C-alpha cells in the first residue's frame, strides 16, 4: 500500500508548523481559530466531489499546522473561487481567500498537485505579460506546449472559427510594456 493512503498517527506535539499557520493567517487576514468545523464550506463547495481533501478539513489541517498535506493537495488548485464557502460561513471567514493564499504558498514552496491547472494559470499570465490583454489562441497554444495535451478542446475550434470569435493575432495595446514592467517589478520586489 502506498504510504500516503495509510492511516498515520499525527503527532500533535511535534508536527504542527505554527509559522505556517501564522503566515496563512496573516496573508489571508482571516482568523483561522474562528472555524468550528460545522462543515458548511464542504457542504456548499461545488467542487467537493473532485477534492482530495474537503475544504473544512483543509481548515482543520491549517488549525493544527499540518503544512505538507495542505500544500500538496489538489483541492487548493481545484477551488475556483466561487465563494460559496465565504458566503455561507457562519463565522464570516473568507474561506475562498484562504484557499487563494494557499495556492500562493504552494507555488512558493514548489508544490502543484494539479499541474494542468497551474499550467493553464501560467499560460494565462504569460499571455497577459506579453500582450497586455489575453490572447486566447496564443494562451491555448502555450498551454498545449506546456502540457503536451495537443487534443485539448480540439473539437471546439470549428465551432468558434467560423463565427470569428477566435482571433489569430493578439490585440496590441500601447500599454503592453507597462504591463510587462508590472511583472518585472513584481519579480524584483519579491513580495
Amino acid at each position, binding site marked *: 500500500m502506498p504510504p500516503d493512503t495509510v492511516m498515520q498517527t499525527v503527532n500533535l506535539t511535534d508536527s504542527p508548523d505554527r509559522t505556517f499557520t501564522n503566515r496563512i493567517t496573516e496573508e489571508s487576514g482571516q482568523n483561522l481559530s474562528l472555524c468550528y468545523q460545522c462543515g458548511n464550506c464542504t457542504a456548499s463547495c*461545488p*467542487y467537493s*466531489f*473532485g477534492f482530495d481533501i474537503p475544504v473544512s478539513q483543509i481548515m482543520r489541517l491549517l488549525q493544527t499546522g499540518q503544512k505538507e498535506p495542505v500544500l500538496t493537495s489538489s483541492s487548493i488548485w*481545484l477551488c*475556483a*473561487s*466561487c*465563494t*460559496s464557502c*465565504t*458566503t455561507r460561513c457562519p463565522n464570516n471567514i*473568507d474561506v*475562498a481567500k484562504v484557499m*487563494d*493564499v494557499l*495556492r*500562493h504558498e504552494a*507555488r512558493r514552496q514548489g508544490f502543484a498537485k*494539479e499541474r*494542468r*491547472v497551474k*499550467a*493553464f*494559470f*501560467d499560460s*494565462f*499570465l504569460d499571455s*497577459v505579460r506579453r500582450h*497586455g*490583454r*489575453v490572447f*486566447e489562441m496564443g494562451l*491555448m497554444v502555450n*498551454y498545449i506546449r506546456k502540457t503536451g495535451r495537443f487534443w*485539448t*478542446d480540439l*473539437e*471546439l475550434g470549428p*465551432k*468558434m472559427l467560423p*463565427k*470569428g*470569435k*477566435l*482571433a489569430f493575432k493578439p*490585440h496590441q*495595446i*500601447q*500599454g*503592453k510594456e*507597462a*504591463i510587462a*514592467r*508590472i*511583472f518585472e*517589478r*513584481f519579480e524584483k*520586489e519579491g*513580495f
Partner: protein
Amino acid sequence: MTKHAYAYYPGCSGQGTSMEYERSTRAVCEALGIQLDEIPDWSCCGSTPAHAFDHTLSAALSGRNLGLAAKQGHDCVLTPCPSCLTNLKTAGKHISGDENFRDKVNRLLDEPLGTIPETKSVLQVLFEDLGPDWISEKVKRPLTGLKVVTYYGCILTRPPGLMEFDSEENPISMDMLMRAAGAEVLPYPLKTECCGASHGVARKDLVMRLSGRLLDMADSLGAQAVVTACPLCQMNLDLRQSQVNSANSAHYKLPIFYYTQLLGWAFGLPDASLGLDKLCVDPGPALRSIAANEDAA
C-alpha cells in the same frame, strides 16, 4: 432622459469568445442612453490566474485600469464581466482600505494611484439606476411566452460584502429585467451554483459535471433558454454544451443568451448589433416561438 456617462471596461473575452456580449451590451446601453467611455488602452485584470498567483500583482493589474479610469475623470467604472468586476472591486477596496497594500501596489505601477473609482456591473446600473419599469417602456417586441431561467453564476453577487448588489443566494435583478422584456422567468434554484469556471481547459471533467447539472435542471423545468451575465458561464454552457451532451449522454439544445441580447432583441435592435449569430446553440427556434406566442395571443 439625461445621458449617464461611465468609464467602461470591456474585459478581454469581449474581444474574442464573448464578442456578442460586448456588442449587445454596447447596443443596449446606447438604446437606454447610457454612455460608455471605454478606458483608453485598458489592459487585462488578470482574472482568476492573477489572484490565484498573488494578491499584489492581481491588484496592480486591476489598479492600472482603475487609475486610467480616474484619469478619464470618471468616478465609476462599468464592466459586463463578473470576473473583471470581482478583480476590479477587490483591488479597489483593498487599495483604498489599506495604506500598506496601496504602497506595495504602487511600487509595481508606472504611476501611483490616487482616488480609486468604484466599479459596478452593467447589470447593476440597468437594474438599480434605470429599473425594470423604465426598461419595460423601451420594449417594442416583447419576449411573450418565452420560458427562460436566469443563471447569474457564482460571483456576480457574491460574496455579498464585496459585491453589495442583489441577493447573494437568490438574486432577482435579471429575472426582473427579463420579465420587463416580457419573458416568463421560471424559478431556477441553481442561480448561483458554479458552472466549472475556468477549469474547462485543464479539468474538463469538472465542468462537464457542474455545467451538466445546470443544463439538466434548466431542461427539467421546461426552460426554452438560459439567460446569463457572465462570459465564462455562457461559454461553458453554450460552446461546451456539445461536450456536456457527449459526456453525460444528454441531448440538450438549450440556447444560452446573454441578458443583453434578449433585452436588445426586445427593444427591436438589429440582429447584427446583438451578435445572435455568434451563439453556438441555435437561438432561432426559441426566438421564433415568441412570434408564434404573439400570434396566438
